[in-house]
């Protein structure tokens, strides 16, 4: 076990180092502020800065003043916002994925099962960014420019809503983020729409796989035995069958983490959550950064965090698999 953890840690650090070097060279060659010195000394300055905090402090602090409504979000805040989105979305994926599979297990072939299965194909086929835009557009037209019911269309608790729609010039006072329980309630309000949007496609893909593996498990002989021994159907499905089908589901979700993270960046930007996606888009030449300035120190951090999260996800996937499925323990 120790050898396994150590091996993964060493490999992880090597990967992150190589990644940071490659991406630094790519980004700095485009950064007007970093072309006065050769790339490698610049990289060395950056690398030292990661450890003594200088590089982290320069996160999202453009040296050239570009109008960026989000300037001031620190690295930790950005990571926290993205992580909150990911955690809520993954919880939703788990709940709805298991729900989809249970509907199929209990009422196999029923109308609900077939309809949900059809919907799951549609759900996976709509990219998260497209769904986010459609949801925002739809709620904008049935609600107002700040939101629909209790759910804001964009922003993070405590952030001033970005100027939206036709009333772009008129800003209401910034709502307070609240503290304690009211902060959590606010967080829930702001995160509901983005997390749902992010989760829909993943439920469509992974929920469908869980469904078919649960149905396959329910056909196996040990389930017949469990039924014959007189266990309730609830116990058979929840304890016996689901336990067998879950590890593959969790491993599949975690191994898909690259795509999930990418989709989260897009959703984060569209819903203005001030997370890593928002910073990435505003500090790299693109639609939200018409001036075309690259802020190497910002994007570098996003790349580094993304790499670290990916490595962590694949590590956790293996641990979860080992924990839920003892057979894989001997394999190593």
């Amino acid at each position, binding site marked *: 076990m120790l050898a396994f953890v150590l091996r993964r840690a060493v490999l992880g650090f090597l990967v992150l180092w190589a990644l940071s070097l490659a991406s630094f060279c790519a980004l700095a060659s485009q950064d007007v502020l970093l072309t006065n010195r050769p790339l490698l000394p610049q990289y060395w300055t950056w690398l030292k800065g990661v450890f003594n905090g200088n590089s982290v402090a320069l996160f999202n602090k453009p040296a050239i003043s570009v109008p960026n409504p989000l300037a001031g979000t620190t690295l930790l805040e950005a990571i926290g916002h993205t992580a909150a989105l990911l955690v809520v979305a993954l919880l939703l994926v788990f709940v709805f994925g298991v729900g989809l599979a249970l509907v199929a297990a209990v009422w196999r072939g029923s109308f609900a099962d077939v309809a949900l299965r059809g919907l799951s194909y549609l759900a996976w*086929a709509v990219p998260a960014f497209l769904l986010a835009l*459609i949801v925002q557009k739809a709620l904008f037209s049935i609600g107002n420019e700040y939101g629909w019911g209790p759910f804001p269309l964009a922003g993070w608790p405590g952030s001033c809503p970005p100027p939206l729609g036709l009333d772009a010039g008129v800003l209401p006072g910034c709502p307070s983020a609240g503290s304690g329980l009211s902060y959590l309630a606010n967080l829930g309000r702001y995160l509901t729409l983005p997390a749902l949007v992010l989760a829909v496609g993943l439920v469509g893909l992974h929920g469908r796989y869980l469904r078919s593996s649960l149905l396959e498990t329910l056909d196996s002989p040990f389930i017949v035995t469990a039924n014959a021994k007189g266990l309730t159907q609830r116990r058979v499905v929840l304890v016996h069958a689901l336990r067998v089908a879950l590890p593959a589901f969790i491993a599949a979700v975690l191994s898909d983490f*690259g795509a999930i993270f990418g989709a989260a960046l897009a959703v984060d930007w569209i819903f203005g959550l001030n997370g890593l996606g928002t910073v990435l888009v505003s500090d*790299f030449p693109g639609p939200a950064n018409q001036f075309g300035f*690259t802020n190497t120190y910002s994007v570098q951090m*996003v790349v580094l965090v993304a790499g670290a999260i990916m490595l962590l996800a694949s590590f956790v996937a293996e641990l979860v698999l080992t924990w839920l499925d003892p057979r894989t323990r001997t394999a190593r």
Partner: protein
Amino acid sequence: MTLAALTILVILLAAGGFAHELAPQGWNSIDLSPRWQNHPPAFANGNVFGTDNLGRSILVRTLWGLHFSEQVAVVGALLATTVGVMIGVLAGYYGGVSDSVLMPFADLVGGFPVIILMLIVFAFLRPVTIWDATLVFAFSLWALVARVVRAKIASIRSQEFVEAARALGASDLRIIVRHVLPNASGVIVVALTSLVGQIVIIDATVEFFGFGVDSSLRPTLGNLIANASATGIGVFNEVSLGWWAWGTPALVLVLLLVSINLAGDGFEAALDPRRRAA
């Protein structure tokens, strides 16, 4: 269900593939009369899906977008599958050193967020061409194929018919080509279809960020949606392209993805006798 999906898929693939014949005027053909700028869908003048703010037919642009998206996805997926199968065979059939060197490498490449990789590569290659995007996808996604192919081939290798072929004096090449690969073809086809779907979706997301192919150079489904959203849908901007400007490529994108997934699942079921019985 699968048949319907396959039909739609073939129609879409053919429409994209024959874009040269269907819309020979090219993706930048402009109707200069002000009446045909930002016009909603109309049956006159052939602008069935309306026009954008420059008077370009959305139908024609979507068709060309489909053409270029398909080129990226299909060529990219084919290249990735070819590389993935070769490496999977090398690692799964021969095992040993090639396995213990290639597979950690594949884990490394496969575990990487493709969107970030695109970002780094595209920072170098701006403006990105269709071929740049194709090759980047091929080089970053082969690992997914290599992993499943290796697992399948490692399990086939230990079966009796491979032993029998070897006992008859067949060479490694003959065993791989005539005995091992045909038995792994199901896995390979399924991996290929899912890869096409994945590339379409990742490509669209990357282009939505504005990091991919620029729509002023080559339209793709992703950058057509992104373009319309940068100036219209979403609540950030007042300048508005009509709903048809993003709705049409979005609809084609969703149709393409649904039919690819249904067809892929159909292949999987058809190639797996256990599931056919159930």
